[in-house]
């Protein structure tokens, strides 16, 4: 049953914002909250034993040595993870949520999330992880994989949290975009928040019609909407609009174009994720 809001906790500067966003989502959607910390495999050890010989009982000795190294490293990682989860728990508690589940898992982040996919209603991750924390303009190495494989909405948190006062949906008239509109209309997450429907494209009757239809759907669900059709390149116009209107949360569908186009031209989704200065909710 897709019920839980899962927040991915790690050591980075995004952890606090992730907790706050996850708490806000859980409260809005009346969903249970689950904190997840994944202990990835540590990078390969640097063993300077290049003697190139094997003596008596080499294999057993080597196994013992490697296992011992792994054991020491992972014991520390386990404790650090527990401390992170405890801190996250306390922060979420302050938002008034009491029903919190926290989990630690071994393995890769993507594999773990895939295993948990059936119970995930919403995923909250940071734009970057602890490893790439200082690399501005870059996105975390796992992010693209997560968005591609997970079939649930993914909230990509920026470093600071604010309750969104205005949200913006990047609309392109495609089937995915209409699905996003339906999802926003039916979900309790964004109720009561003014929604801007922005489409980057030329002023054609088709585009106008699509925009009008989407606006009608949202109005029917009780949303206060603005529609705007802006000419120009998608990334730039959406970014400009966001800045002008002080949008707090961006919403978009993911990877609408084919993989081949992504490979050659580059993906709009990835570019948006990279450029955006505010948190981004990616819907599938």
């Amino acid at each position: 049953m897709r019920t839980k809001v899962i927040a991915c906790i790690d050591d980075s500067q995004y952890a606090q914002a992730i907790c706050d966003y996850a708490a806000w989502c859980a409260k809005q959607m009346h969903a249970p909250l689950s904190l997840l910390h994944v202990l990835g495999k540590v990078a390969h050890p640097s063993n300077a034993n290049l003697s190139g010989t094997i003596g008596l009982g080499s294999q057993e000795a080597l196994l013992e040595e490697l296992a011992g190294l792994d054991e020491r490293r992972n014991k520390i990682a386990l404790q650090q993870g527990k401390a992170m989860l405890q801190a996250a728990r306390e922060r979420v508690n302050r938002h008034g949520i009491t029903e919190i589940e926290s989990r630690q898992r071994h393995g890769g982040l993507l594999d773990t999330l895939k295993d948990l996919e059936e119970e995930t209603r919403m995923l909250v991750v940071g734009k970057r992880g602890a490893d790439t924390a200082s690399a501005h303009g870059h996105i975390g190495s796992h992010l693209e994989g997560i968005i591609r494989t997970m079939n649930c909405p993914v909230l990509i948190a920026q470093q600071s949290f604010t309750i969104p006062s205005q949200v913006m949906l990047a609309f392109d008239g495609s089937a995915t975009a209409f699905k996003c509109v339906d999802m926003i209309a039916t979900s309790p997450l964004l109720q009561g928040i003014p929604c801007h429907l922005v489409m980057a494209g030329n002023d054609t009757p088709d585009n106008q019609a699509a925009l009008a239809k989407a606006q009608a759907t949202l109005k029917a669900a009780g949303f206060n909407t603005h529609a705007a059709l802006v000419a120009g390149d998608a990334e730039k116009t959406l970014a400009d609009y966001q800045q002008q209107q002080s949008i707090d949360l961006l919403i978009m569908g993911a990877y609408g174009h084919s993989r081949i186009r992504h490979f050659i031209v580059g993906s709009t989704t990835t570019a948006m994720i990279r450029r955006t200065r505010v948190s981004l909710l990616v819907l599938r």
Partner: protein
Amino acid sequence: MMNHLRQHWLSNIRGDVLAGSVVALALIPEAIAFSIIAGVDPKVGLYASFCIAFVTAFTGGRPAMISAATGAMALLMVTLVKDHGLQYLLAASVLCGVFQIIAGIFKLGGLMRFVSRSVVTGFVNALAILIFLAQLPEITGANATVTVYILLGAGLGIIYLFPYITRAVPSPLVCIVSLTIIAIYFGIDVRTVGDMGELPDSLPIFLIPDIPLNFETLTIIFPYSITMAAVGLLESMMTATILDDLTDTPSNKNRECVGQGTANIASGFLGGMAGCAMIGQSVINVKSGGRTRLSTLIAGVFLLILVVFLGDWVAQIPMAALVAVMIMVSIGTFSWSSVVALRSHPKSSSIVMLSTVAVVVVTHNLALGVLLGVLLSALFFARKVGDILYIGSSLDESGQHRTYQVVGQVFFTSAEQFIEGFNFKEAMDKVTIDLHRAHFWDITAISSLDKVVLKFRRDGTNVELTGLNEASATLVDRFAVHDKPEAIDQLMGH
């Protein structure tokens, strides 16, 4: 895809390059030595090692495993090369590769579960003994000169004592380089690698083996190919398991089978012999810091570069230096802990291990040894389980009705014991045989039950069977308890 590339190739560049180089340096003497064992030019073993390492880097299922020309495979080729020559060997390598790919496609890697630890240990020990024995012709007979022994002693000394000075340079390399320099400088007259045959002077070229393509050729190479395929896969699966434990990462055994097959086909077409994974070198690879496929690739490429461009120097390496390296490998491969464990392990395991070793050393055929070992393990297991049978009986007050309780496993091994558990001499009106705590595993068990019932009937006794349904639930071929927790209690109760 980028992530995959990064994880499997680029995540440990420094460690892999260093480890690959260390391995390549040790691979050169091994490839040469194994070619000599097989009776072909060193060129064949060296091309084979390059090819197999290169191809398995891309197609194999176990990153960081080193595959090249090996002693296990070389020993199987001796008669083929002697009787029919190199071209038939190349054809046999290609056919061996085909069999290995078929094994991978049909997921025969799972058959490894029937090979017990004792057999695996026996295999490894036998291999070490055979590698050692293969070095003896170089240091006995006409070669038993003082110079050879001095060089050998010096070589072994350098190999084992140099790591105490520094661990940053592989000691086999130091051994070979220093002994070569000494031999050249002092003009010592010993056998060198160049005396054993041709070395590669160019990069390998594609050639189709020069054999008549008819049924007769197939009958000649078929038995060799199938044995080589079996031995190659056995050693590769075992090495893969060892590396899984060392690196704490899983591997795809069936993909490895296909990878080995592809590599052997490529090797056959490039003038190399068949090979498989090497336990010793893979352990050295992991020990030196290699973790990804890049280490295997570097090992193969580095080997080829060294040999093709430094061929003249390689030809001057004294055989004594190679023998020293090979003795190091054989000592490292032998499982010394198994000798110590002979005292504490059950006799049946020890017998399995020792008989595997004995058969391999006598026949020089690792597949035969493993077959015998598997057979013996199975027989010992059947005997042990056959002892889990108990037949108790009780007489009721009238003295005319006896109830037998059968508890345990009834199958071909314990069928005789089952029949002997009933007292046919007693004259009874009625006999009840309670079977609900017994398990019948095959037709022999059922037929022995029929025999018992018949005997009682012929004696005029009424026989009643109870619990036959539960007992014969295990007759079915694919009886498994892992999805039926309640069945476990019934199975284990005796």
